[in-house]
Every structure is written in structure tokens, then in C-alpha cells.
């Protein structure tokens, strides 16, 4: 009973302590304003990490004398810190966040929560508790503490390094035309930076999913569908299908097509130059009224307008633009250190070189598959190995947690 009462008192203290942290945060928010993360770059962040670690170690060494530090290593401290972390993260989850580049902060800064002092301080508080319990489980080291250390140290390392390393992350985008070279990138504020890399774009290619037919409302342009079918994918083998109450027959699909205006109609012919569109000759029969319509349907391109087939007063068949399946850039890359690399970059397959990761970011969407330029994203994150070390530790911790769950208690019995 007594232990329970002391624990409850400790928990109340923890909750009040958390409230104090939030109040201090609010005070800072109102006096110095939101946190300027861009200031915390190297070497300031390194100094902060070292300072933080030293503080934790000093606290740990004098734990016998400082009651507060001993309290930090107990469950009530962790529980109350988690409660505050959940509460503030809930606010983040429930409020619409303003993109970083807009300056206004909304009510008390909660619409840019990541630079909101109470949010940051509460997470710092959680990290301090994590640091303290890791220290107390590391010295003296016991093998049976390993899962505990993986879980707690992993989260500590990942959280601290990701937060303090964030300002060192460089993210630049670069737009390169085929056959041209580029070494300048734009940051999110639109400022041009010179990169230590030069890219020459040799080729950009897109694979697309087959064109589709769908029925849209003449009035709103919205897709009309029932439960079973929304669209008819024009794969090679497909020549017929059904959309709503219409039986569809496709007699001719041209993936590189151009419209030719005849006296009273439009015909599509094969045409392989830039700007070619997709076209299909479609025959539609209403299965109830037996009304029959036929004609060309085309998705259009940046060069040619789209072509719909009017079915009745309410609906038409259209061919939406084809969705990209895979897009990639063949590049030649030169580094300042004199390296020359030939590579192919595609989505999910970035290129890693000299600490940079180069991503396939986009292309000229208006031109679609005829895009003659490719957009790359350059990311430099010197803290990544540290964050990954934390992530891998947490993974190991999770595996241990699965393996030993329920075992300990069985042993105790």
C-alpha cells in the first residue's frame, strides 16, 4: 500500500513536472518566438549533443545524492513523460499544419508544431529519461539487459540525432534537359546552390500503364461507376468489355497516334513524333436500349486535344491520361574529386555518391511520356548513419521483445 502511494505521488509529480515544462515552453514561445531549426547546424548541434550527454552522465554519477535523478529512472517518470508526449503529438495530429515556407504561426504556434517550444521540450524530457535509464542499464552491463538497451538506446539515438541533425540535411532539386549538363540545385526557398556534382542527362524514359476507357458525366466531368467496373484497361489482349450498362468493343488501339481532320470527322493515324497521343476506336452498345455509338476516343497530349465519345445526354466515354509505371534517367555524373560515373536512376532506386543521395524526383508532367527533361532531388544527410544505427537497434529490440514476451514471467513462476 505504502509503495503504491509513493508511486502515485511520483506519478503526480511527473505530470506536474511535465506541465511545468510545457509552461516554460509556452513562455519561450511567447518571448523568443518559435524555434529556428535552421540555426542549429554543424557545429552547434554537435556541441549540443555533447553538452546533453555530459549533463546526463554527470547526473548519473551523482544519482546517489540527487533524488530527482533517481526519480528519472523510475516508471512514474517515464509514464508521465509519455503521457505528455502523446498529448502534444495528438495536437500535432489534430491540427492542420502550415507548410514550413509560410511565416505565420497561427494560434500560439501549434500550426507549426515542430518548431513549437513545448513540443520540443517535452520530447527532450523523454530523451533525458531514456538517456538516464540507458546509463543505469549499461553500467554494470548484463547480457539480460540487452533487449532493454536495444529498445531504449535505439530510440534515444534515433530521436536525438534525427532532431539535431535535421538542420544539416540539404535537400535540393535540379531540373536537367536531355543532352545538357547541370550542377546547380534549388533549395526549398528557391535559392540556387552550386553542387559538388555535375549531371549530364543522356536519356529519360517512361513506361506507362495501358490506356483506359471510362465513362464520365457530361455535366461534372466526374467518373461514373458502379460497384463492379470503373474503367476498362486496354491491354494488348483486350478487345471488349463493359462499362456501366454499355457493351464496349475496341477495334483499333494506337499508342502513338495523331488526329487527321477529314471533311466531317476526325481520324487517327500512326505517328511516332514527340507529342503523339493514344487513341482507340470504340463501339458502344447500350444493353438495355440497344442504342449504338462509335467513334475515336483519345487521351490527348500537350500537342493534341483529347477526344471523347458522346454516349447520350448525360455521359461520354473518355480516355484519361496514362499513368506512369516506371520512369528513369540515364545519366553521366562527374564529381569534384574527379570521379566519372554512368548510372540509371529511378524512383525507389536512388544513386549514392560522396555522401549524397540522388533521387528521381519528377519530370515535365505536361509533356508526359514525351518529357525531355528530368527532375532530380539531391539529399545530403551526414547524420544518417547515426540515425540508422538507432533504427537498427530498435529493430533488434523489437525482435527480442517478440522472442522473450511472456517468457520472463513464466520463469519467475
Amino acid at each position, binding site marked *: 500500500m505504502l509503495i*503504491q502511494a509513493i*508511486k*502515485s505521488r511520483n*506519478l503526480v509529480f511527473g505530470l506536474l513536472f511535465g506541465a511545468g515544462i510545457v509552461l516554460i515552453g509556452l513562455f519561450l514561445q511567447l518571448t523568443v518566438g518559435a524555434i529556428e531549426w535552421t540555426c542549429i547546424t554543424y557545429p552547434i548541434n554537435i556541441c549540443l549533443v555533447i553538452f546533453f550527454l555530459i549533463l546526463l552522465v554527470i547526473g548519473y554519477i551523482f544519482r546517489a545524492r540527487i533524488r530527482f535523478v533517481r526519480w528519472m529512472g*523510475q*516508471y*512514474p517518470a*517515464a*509514464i508521465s513523460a*509519455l*503521457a505528455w*508526449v*502523446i498529448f502534444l*503529438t*495528438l495536437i*500535432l*495530429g*489534430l*491540427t*492542420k*499544419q502550415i507548410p514550413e515556407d509560410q511565416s505565420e504561426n497561427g494560434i500560439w504556434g501549434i500550426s507549426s508544431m*515542430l518548431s513549437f517550444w513545448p513540443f520540443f521540450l517535452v520530447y527532450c524530457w523523454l530523451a533525458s529519461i531514456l538517456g538516464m535509464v540507458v546509463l543505469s542499464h549499461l553500467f554494470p552491463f548484463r547480457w539480460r539487459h540487452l533487449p532493454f538497451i536495444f529498445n531504449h538506446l535505439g530510440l534515444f539515438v534515433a530521436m536525438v540525432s*534525427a532532431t539535431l541533425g535535421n538542420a544539416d540535411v540539404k*535537400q535540393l532539386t535540379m531540373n536537367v534537359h536531355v543532352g545538357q549538363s547541370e550542377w546547380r540545385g534549388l533549395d526549398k526557398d528557391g535559392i540556387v546552390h552550386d553542387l559538388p556534382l555535375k549531371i549530364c542527362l543522356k536519356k529519360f524514359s517512361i513506361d506507362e*500503364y495501358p490506356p483506359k476507357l471510362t465513362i464520365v458525366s457530361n455535366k461534372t466531368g466526374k467518373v461514373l*461507376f458502379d*460497384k*463492379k*467496373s*470503373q*474503367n476498362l*484497361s486496354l491491354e494488348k489482349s483486350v478487345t471488349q468489355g463493359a462499362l456501366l450498362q454499355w457493351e464496349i468493343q475496341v477495334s483499333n488501339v494506337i499508342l502513338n497516334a495523331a488526329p487527321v481532320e477529314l471533311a466531317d470527322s476526325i481520324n487517327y493515324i500512326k505517328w511516332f513524333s514527340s507529342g503523339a497521343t493514344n487513341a482507340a476506336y470504340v463501339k458502344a452498345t447500350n444493353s438495355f436500349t440497344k442504342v449504338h455509338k462509335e467513334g475515336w476516343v483519345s487521351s490527348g497530349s500537350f500537342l493534341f486535344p483529347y477526344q471523347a465519345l458522346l454516349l447520350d445526354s448525360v455521359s461520354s466515354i473518355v480516355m484519361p491520361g496514362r*499513368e*506512369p*509505371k*516506371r*520512369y528513369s534517367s540515364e545519366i553521366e555524373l562527374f564529381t569534384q574529386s574527379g570521379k566519372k560515373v554512368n548510372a540509371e536512376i*529511378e*524512383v*525507389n*532506386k*536512388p544513386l549514392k555518391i560522396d555522401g549524397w*543521395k540522388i*533521387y528521381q524526383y519528377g519530370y515535365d508532367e505536361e509533356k508526359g511520356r514525351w518529357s525531355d527533361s528530368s527532375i532530380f*532531388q539531391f539529399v545530403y*544527410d551526414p547524420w*544518417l548513419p547515426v*540515425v*540508422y544505427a538507432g*533504427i537498427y537497434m*530498435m*529493430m533488434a*529490440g*523489437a*525482435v527480442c*521483445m*517478440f522472442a522473450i*514476451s*511472456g517468457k520472463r*514471467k513464466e520463469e519467475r513462476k
Partner: protein
Amino acid sequence: MSWDSFIYFALSSVAFFILGAFFAWKGRKSWIIYTSTLIGLFILGGFIVNIWISFERPPLRTMGETRLWYSFFLPLAGIITYVRWKYKWILCFSTLLSFVFICVNLFKPEIHNKTLMPALQSPWFPPHVIVYMFAYAILGAATVLSIYLLWIKKKEIQEKEMEMCDNLVSVGLAFMTLGMLFGALWAKEAWGHYWTWDPKETWAAITWFSYLFYIHYRKGFPSNRQIPLYFLLISFVFLQICWWGINYLPAAIGSSIHTYN
């Protein structure tokens, strides 16, 4: 193979799940319980493999597809829990929930097509979602157990029953952690950063922290049984918001890359 044939696979697998659950409830021999559940899993798994092949992509993109995996993993999580801890009610529960999700897919079919945007074409995609669905299944079991202990069971809650809850939560949390971290590693390869506080990620963090709260509370205050059980229910609400609720959350609409159609 398409969703049209789902009903045959679904009903026959559910029949085997029910058989397994019935035998478990009656305390029959283990082999007959395992065999019937495994046959059910084999049938439902066969359907998943078949549509995976015919869609030419992992069937993990739409909400309906994640429900399909959920209805597969519930009985799997159930049988694993049964093998390990021999709770005779667990298969009844997993079968019932699996059946609910199968019914949702039968009565509210979604439009399923083959397209998969390039960013989702990654070897990380299947493990990320599958591990998460498995975690959700286990945590669903923990939720039902807590409802049972809080309101249905009239007698005092036993420590043994609380341990059952603890076990389910730690296994669920272990899988959830893995799912979240797989997501982070994948995000780095596909979008350039491992964590961007995208609404889905924010809610994943909330869910994760709230299950951590449960675990720490249980260790810190082992004799207090009501509060952690209530918290388990709240955590499951967070989990639902993370899974599908953010599609309707005003704060998240239009700003998440994790939107399913």
C-alpha cells in the same frame, strides 16, 4: 483470377476457421484445431497469391486490399497465440473479426485495378504493410480481451488475464515497431527522408507511444488493472485513426502521401 471469385475462397476458408474455433472452444485435440485453421489459411492465402500474380503487383494498395490481409492475419495471429498460450477463446474472436472484414470486402467491394504508382514499387512495400496488418490483428485481440475484462466478465480481473493482455500487446508492439521502421527505411529510399511528420506518420507515432504507455504503466503499477485496460481501448482508437481515420480527418486531408483510394 479476380475479386469475382473471392466469395468462394472467403466462405470456404471461414467455414474452416469456424470449425477450428469450435474445436478449440470445446477443448478438442490440438491437431484437429491446427489442421482446420491451417486449411482455412491455405485457402485464403491461395486467393491472395492468385490476385498478387494476376494483378502483377502486391495487393496492398487499396483499403480493401489491406482488409483482405487483415482477415488473413487475424486467424494466423489467433492460431499462433493459441499454440503459444492455449487461450481457448482466441480462435472464436479471430474468426469473428476475420469474418467481419471478409463481409466488408464482399458487400462493399472496391474498384481494384493493376496500377501501382512508381513510389510504391519497392521491395519494402509488402513487409511494411504485412507486418503492420499482423500487428493490428494482435492488438485487435488485446482490445477485445480488454473489453471482455472491463465489461463482460463480472468477477474480479485475475493477474493471469492481465498477463495475457501484456503478452498480446508486447507482441503487437514488436511487430508495429518493425512495420514503422521498415516504413522509415523505405521512405528514405523512395522520398528522400525517413520521417517527415506526414499525418500518417504522426498518428503512427501517437499509436506507438500509447502502447508504450500501456506497457510502462503495467510495469510501474501492476496492481492497478482498470486504467491500463481503458488505455488499451484508447490506443486502439488511435490505431484506427492511423489506419483509415486520417482519410477523413480535416487536419490530414490533402497533406498525406499515405492516402488510399
